[in-house]
């Protein structure tokens, strides 16, 4: 992009596409969505390979699974949802709900899950008849644009409006801000770093952003340790830890600490000594910016160990840092999207939960928390004190938080973090969040209010109790 006229052209195209889109009925819309899902799914392997080649992050097999989530599972989740015209009609309340599109959506997509996020956002935008403009991460342009092109061609094959999907291969920060603040932009779907998400919220355009994660996983002593550790390993190692809902710290009660350690080692965990922890901390954490380093994001344990100058067994796949505190002195207590995890031993249940609170609020408020337990009372207690949109129980957090794989949460690659993450929702963002719902409200008189003597409201002698008695009078 070079000047304002290009931005205006993109927006004009989007507005026009939106106007045309608004005429389509549910059946036509669903045909387009199905075609896009099919094309995305059939290109899942090619796009995964492109993503790994371009970003040098994550694992090919897991990128394929991410593309499957973004296509098959998202489609399965939204295919029967009514998103056009009258979506509910209640005779008793007299309320009829009508789903209308929002208008042009600006989709900022990340480097960690590039093609899957592009396809996911396109599917939910098209399902709701919204034109979408993709702004990919600068380190994942080619694979993201290819995903958008594949989706667009498929959409056109089912007579979707021209320019219903657009993409911007290169976009400076200033141009991004202009796009976000454009008067015709209806919504920003922002997945990316904190700065970008904050910029989206500051643009004046409504935004659905995501917050950062810092997921504590508490293995409570009633848990099946062998199962818990296997689930954590499969989750944390998935795509080399690039899922923002992946576990960042394991917290165990001292009674079961040794068995958890043994099981972690059995499955390829390597417990670092303090010196090794310091060396790894120095490469996975940018102490100047106080965030994880992008150099090690999505890289293997072997790569990180070599970079840090430590020697690990060849079978080691996860670097574990035993820590006794949370905060700046302990860099690995921050979110690290790589196969590196903190490990804490707590004196008892209460101390363990308090530690989880500290970790949860240490950069991950509103995102996700995880617990392994067979004690329902403790699961509920834990959930009550966590500030997390999702508390996943006895499941891998990466696969649990994104929904549709090991639970019935909505399939999503945009995880709302509520006010904790400065977001408007804690939901897994999906098609229903991209609609204006209009309500036809038919006359249904409130009989209680209709019958009460209104002059009583003007009489200071009547307090709330006396008024309520009159209001609720059942003649």
């Amino acid at each position, binding site marked *: 992009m070079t000047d304002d006229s290009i931005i205006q052209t993109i927006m004009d195209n989007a507005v026009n596409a939106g106007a045309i889109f608004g005429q389509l009925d549910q059946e036509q819309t669903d045909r387009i969505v199905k075609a896009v899902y099919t094309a995305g799914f059939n290109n899942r392997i090619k796009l995964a390979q492109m993503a790994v080649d371009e970003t040098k992050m994550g694992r090919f097999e897991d990128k394929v699974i991410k593309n499957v989530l973004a296509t098959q599972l998202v489609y399965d989740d939204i295919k029967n949802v009514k998103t056009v015209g009258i979506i509910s009609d209640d005779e008793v309340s007299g309320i009829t709900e009508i789903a209308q599109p929002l208008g042009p959506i600006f989709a900022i997509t990340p480097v960690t899950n590039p093609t899957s996020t592009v396809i996911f956002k396109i599917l939910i935008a098209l399902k709701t008849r919204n034109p979408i403009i993709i702004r990919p991460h600068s380190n994942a342009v080619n694979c993201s644009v290819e995903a958008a092109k594949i989706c667009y061609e498929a959409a056109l094959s089912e007579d979707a409006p021209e320019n219903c999907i657009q993409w911007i291969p290169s976009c400076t920060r200033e141009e991004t801000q202009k796009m976000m603040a454009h008067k015709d932009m209806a919504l920003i779907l922002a997945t990316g770093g904190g700065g970008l998400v904050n910029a989206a919220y500051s643009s004046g355009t409504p935004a659905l952003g995501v917050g950062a994660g810092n997921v504590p996983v508490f293995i409570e002593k009633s848990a099946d340790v062998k199962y818990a550790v296997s689930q954590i390993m499969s989750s944390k190692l998935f795509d080399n830890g690039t899922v923002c809902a992946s576990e960042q710290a394991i917290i165990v009660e001292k009674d079961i600490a040794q068995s958890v350690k043994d099981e972690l080692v059995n499955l390829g965990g390597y417990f670092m000594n303090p010196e090794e922890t310091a060396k790894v901390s120095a490469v996975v954490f940018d102490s100047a910016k106080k965030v994880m380093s992008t150099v090690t994001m999505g890289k293997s344990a072997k790569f990180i160990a070599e970079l840090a100058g430590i020697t690990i067994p060849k079978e080691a796949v996860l670097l574990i840092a035993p820590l006794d505190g949370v905060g700046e002195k302990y860099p690995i207590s921050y979110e690290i999207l790589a196969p590196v995890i903190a490990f804490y031993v707590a004196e008892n249940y*209460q101390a363990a939960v*308090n530690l989880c*609170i*500290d970790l949860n609020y240490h950069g991950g408020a509103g995102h996700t928390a995880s617990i392994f337990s067979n004690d329902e009372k403790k699961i509920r207690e834990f959930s009550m*004190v966590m500030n997390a949109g999702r508390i996943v129980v006895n499941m891998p957090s990466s696969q649990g938080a994104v929904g549709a794989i090991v639970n019935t949460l909505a399939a999503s690659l945009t995880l709302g973090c509520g006010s904790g993450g400065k977001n408007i929702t804690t939901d897994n963002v999906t098609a229903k969040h991209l609609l204006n719902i209009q309500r036809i409200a038919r006359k249904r008189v409130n009989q209680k209010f209709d019958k009460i003597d209104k002059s009583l409201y003007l009489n200071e002698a009547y307090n709330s109790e006396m008024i309520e008695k009159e209001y609720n009078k059942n003649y």
Partner: protein
Amino acid sequence: MFTLNISGNKKIFTFSTKLDTASCANMDVELMEALGTDSEEVEFDMSGVDYISSIFLRICTMVAKRIGVNKLRVTNSAPGVKKVFKIAGFDEILNVE
């Protein structure tokens, strides 16, 4: 309301279950009296406390100001109480364990 145990230079205050507005009504005066002027180290033992009011938070501030923030430790908080300190930002000022 609270019990006081003295162990060397340390004064340990242990509180009752519910530190609501009513039960904290005169606590500040009584606690300050018990604190005296020469407290080296103070511990608020929150074992068994399941509710704290804003008055109690204020009392924590008063005590911290009187003796110095590093000398006050809040210990054995139940997770629900710990969360109150966390949300209110007190864990950044006080030593909440």
